[in-house]
């Protein structure tokens, strides 16, 4: 089970956990923890691998910051898994989003391994999962736009959460 104290510390280090400054922070944190536990279980069941999100801090803080974005922490387990795979370099092949006020929504993400050997499908009916989209990076290849990568918005320099200090290692 995810350590609540460590999670709070890590979210603070992202510099973007302003939710935790507001009333109800404990409930938010508990929800994030449950979400991470669900993600770890989902990932293990689907890919047979037990992942530890805190490992990102040890080797690649920018990816850690992206994964511990409050937006990411709010995603469903399948979409967290999609984010994890994108952070690993998987290609975004296709995205379909259906959203309508007061109606069922649907997000479908297709990823492929960088070698394009197989397609992985991720689906969700949670409209909040659309938050994933705002962190997708985009690159230009032969002048053509492509989605690639998942990123955190950088906080103010010198603001809360210097990324290379006091991180759990």
């Amino acid at each position, binding site marked *: 089970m995810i350590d609540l104290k460590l999670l709070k510390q890590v979210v603070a280090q992202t510099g973007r956990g302003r939710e935790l400054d507001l009333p109800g922070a404990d409930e938010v944190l508990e929800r994030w923890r449950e979400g991470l536990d669900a993600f770890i279980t989902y990932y293990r069941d689907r890919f047979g691998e037990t992942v530890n999100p805190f490992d990102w801090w040890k080797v690649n803080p920018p990816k850690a910051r992206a994964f511990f974005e409050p937006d990411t922490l709010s995603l469903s387990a399948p979409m967290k898994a999609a984010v994890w795979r994108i952070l690993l370099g998987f290609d975004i092949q296709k995205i379909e989003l259906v959203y309508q006020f007061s109606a069922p929504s649907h997000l479908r993400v297709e990823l492929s391994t960088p070698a394009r050997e197989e397609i992985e499908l991720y689906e969700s009916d949670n409209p909040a999962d659309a938050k994933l989209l705002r962190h997708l990076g985009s690159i230009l290849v032969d002048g053509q736009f492509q989605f690639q990568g998942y990123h955190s918005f950088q906080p103010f*320099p010198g603001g809360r959460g210097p990324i290379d200090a006091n991180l759990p290692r």
Partner: protein
Amino acid sequence: MIGRSDYQLVAPPIPDLPDWIIQVCRRKWPDGVFLDANETELIPLSSPKLAWRPQSEEFFIFSDRPTAEKWDDLGPCAENWNRMLHFLWQPSKTGAPAPVTVVIDEPTPDIQALLKDLQATFREAASFAPPVAEAA
């Protein structure tokens, strides 16, 4: 790097710039490999292993593994002409844009197109940089 040319690009102040560079280069060279300037291990651009390492400040991207493996023996030559890119950058600590040096053999149309894609991608990446007013 005698005989090679330096090109200066400008990147936004983001800490994961090499990731963006690698993804663009991987589209050009799907079989490309990465080499940190301070290490010896060649890592395929398509390998998840690249995600599990720190962001490098100086690195090489080769078009393919055989080119990389023979580079030390051959040096720049006709056989590997324009098949290796050398990148140098430093993460901005002030919030100012960061220069990125790309060392190439020759600015052929292919390489010029790649440099143009990289600079355009850096503009895309700028949306993840800190707000300007606070970054000065």
